[in-house]
């Protein structure tokens, strides 16, 4: 067994599954916990053997659309993002259900319950339900591999995109995975009916009605294809509905992994009602174990509630945060193992900006400029520089979503707030800041956009930035006059000049000003030096 297995992260198992299933391209924007899928594909030996697209996209929406385009052309594609990235891609994702697909198309959304590296813990299973698409939720790394292979085949069979949902725990956990055979990639070919991709209302109405009419096929696949399974058990006082990786915590709770209760394991949605009926008929009460939001529990409860259903809503499990073996064991009423209390000496050790990080110098200069102006507000964005919220800087007042720094600063400036400063990284700027900047350009809004250009997507590990080498021309191209664009170098010896530049931009500019602080990320600089 040891010779034909590999230790793979859940993310890497998805990537290997997609490669073995014959994808011709992967499209993604980096985002924890999904980043390692694309990184694995970029490193894979297959790239030397055949054409395989593996470049980062500018954002999740362009990734989703490019994936749909590759599918249109008959080839298989994988699209990957973190859960909040699916919000960005949602327009394309939901409409791709209406156009349908041609080559297999699997969209991976990696959810982050407990918000280890995120701003919310939204549950991507809702998106699949919303778009009327199949959703796969692998329970372990081997299933992550197998369900990616299956998902691409299912997509080609149904001619629909398939959503594959991961959570942080599986995405970032390594296990021994046994890969299967390789499939050849598809040749270039056109869809059977190209009009279905033209979503004029008349066509969209027909497509949408067909999508609704085909839901029984999705249920049939979820019933027959083997990833959902009911297993009877002698102790019928309680039945268990366990979704995806939750089944692991269930088995962990019993000696030798033998659960005495009837168990329905769900890894494919929509959930066939006959399986739910079988489980409900075999037990007095039902405990729902699912990571993320209580989607199945709410479904089973119905609007009026059902006293037989237990889980996150009834208080047997915490309403928020990821499941753990301990919370699941407690919900099952299992005996608590003896353990030591936490040490009183322990304190939080939050992440911080690296020693020598250019953002440190950018924040030092900004703080000096704004020191005498308590009315000033700094709207920041998603990236390492969000750490500027923590001591010693405590320099920013918001971090909401990709690109929101510029748009929020604009809205606040429109409301009369001055000085309004946006702080955004180069990669976040190309992801979602450019359109926001154009809004400010159109009105010459009295605000300053401070772009921290470290030449990379730093927080996710240094992926290439779409802004690299073209940021100044992008800013100018959006219509910011050359006289209102300054470029500074965030180094300690440049501090006085940087303070002067920011002061000029914030206090002595008519309307919109842009300051670009350019110095390479200290982490990627170390790698480039080697």
């Amino acid at each position, binding site marked *: 067994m040891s010779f034909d*297995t590999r230790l793979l992260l859940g993310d890497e198992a998805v990537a290997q599954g997609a490669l073995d299933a014959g994808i011709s391209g992967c499209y993604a924007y980096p985002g924890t*916990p999904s980043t390692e899928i694309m990184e694995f594909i970029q490193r894979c030996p297959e790239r030397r053997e055949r054409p395989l697209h593996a470049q980062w996209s500018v954002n999740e929406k362009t990734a989703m659309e490019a994936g749909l385009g590759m599918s249109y052309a008959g080839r298989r594609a994988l699209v990957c993002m973190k859960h909040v990235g699916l919000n960005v891609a949602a327009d394309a994702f939901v409409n791709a259900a209406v156009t349908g697909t041609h080559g297999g198309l699997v969209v991976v959304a990696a959810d982050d319950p407990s918000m*280890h*590296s995120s701003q919310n813990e939204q549950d991507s299973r809702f998106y699949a339900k919303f778009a009327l698409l199949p959703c796969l939720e692998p329970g372990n790394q081997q299933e992550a591999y197998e369900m990616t292979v299956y998902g691409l085949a299912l997509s080609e069979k149904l001619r629909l995109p398939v959503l594959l949902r991961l959570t942080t725990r599986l995405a970032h956990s390594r296990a021994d995975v046994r890969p299967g055979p390789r499939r050849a990639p598809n040749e270039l070919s056109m869809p059977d009916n190209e009009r279905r991709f033209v979503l004029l209302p008349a066509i969209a109405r027909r497509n949408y009605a067909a999508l609704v009419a085909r839901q029984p096929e999705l249920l049939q696949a979820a019933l027959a294809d083997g990833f959902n399974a009911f297993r009877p058990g002698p102790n019928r006082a309680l039945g268990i509905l366990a979704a995806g990786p939750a089944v692991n915590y269930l088995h962990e709770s019993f000696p030798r992994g033998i659960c005495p209760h009837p168990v329905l394991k769900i890894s494919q949605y929509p959930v066939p009602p006959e399986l739910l009926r079988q489980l409900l008929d075999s037990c007095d009460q039902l405990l729902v174990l699912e990571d993320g939001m209580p989607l199945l529990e709410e479904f089973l409860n119905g609007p009026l509630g059902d006293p037989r259903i237990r889980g996150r809503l009834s208080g047997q499990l915490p309403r928020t945060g990821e499941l753990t073996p301990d919370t699941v064991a407690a919900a099952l009423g299992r005996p*608590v193992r003896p353990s*030591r209390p936490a040490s009183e*000496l322990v304190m939080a050790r939050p*992440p911080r900006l690296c020693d020598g990080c250019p953002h440190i110098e950018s924040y030092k200069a900004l703080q000096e400029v704004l020191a005498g102006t308590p009315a000033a507000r700094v709207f920041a964005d998603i990236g390492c520089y969000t*750490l500027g919220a923590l001591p010693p800087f405590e320099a920013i007042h918001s971090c909401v979503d990709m690109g929101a720094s510029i748009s929020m600063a604009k809205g606040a400036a429109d409301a009369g707030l001055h000085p309004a400063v946006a702080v955004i990284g180069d990669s976040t700027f190309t992801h979602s800041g450019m359109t926001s900047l154009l809004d400010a350009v159109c009105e010459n809004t009295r605000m300053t956009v401070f772009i921290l250009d470290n030449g990379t997507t730093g927080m996710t590990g240094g992926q290439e930035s779409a802004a690299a080498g073209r940021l100044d021309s992008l800013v100018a191209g959006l219509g910011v006059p050359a006289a209102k664009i300054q470029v500074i170098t965030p180094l300690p010896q440049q501090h006085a000049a940087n303070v002067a530049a920011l002061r000029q931009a914030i206090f002595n500019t008519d309307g919109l000003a842009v300051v670009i602080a350019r110095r390479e990320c200290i982490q990627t600089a170390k790698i480039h030096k080697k």
Partner: protein
Amino acid sequence: MKYDILLCGVGGQGILTIGHVVGEMARRAGWRVKQPEVHGMAQRGGAVEAHVRLSEAPVHSDLIPRGGADLIVAMEPLEALRHLPLLAPDGWVITATESVRNCAGYPESAALLAELDALPHKVLLPVADLARQAGSPRGANMVLLGALSTRLSFPEAAYGAAIRDLFGRKGDAVVQANLAAFAAGRAAAV
């Protein structure tokens, strides 16, 4: 046979590398492995942990349950203490004694080490010193791996093979330095 090992430290200390060596070695021995790691923002100087679950039988949960860890292996003493609730009553703590003081209000070293020293089963090692003495100043994590190896049943040669495979592409000098650090940790912990 099974080992549940909680590896911990501060971002950048090479904790995940220890996990890779042990996990890969167990896989080659035909064991089952689950190994969740902290990636992303926390690696920027924050607390980092990896649960390494090795078993001859299938492993269910990726995470180690409270009170279930056979070993806590720490590159930093405060991080060792952080995870004590995971430790089984008869579990071992193997920890570096050198502190990384990058957070406000970091406790006195003497108090930290006294609490660790009061545990029934522990190995406290100055891993950075031992690595320097072994001529491998960047091999502190391999010193800790050497110490850990004394508590596991895998043959010493298996670690050597895993270290060679992991560092081979960096050249023989790097491999030898890491092997020397591993040997120093193993000798110090016996």
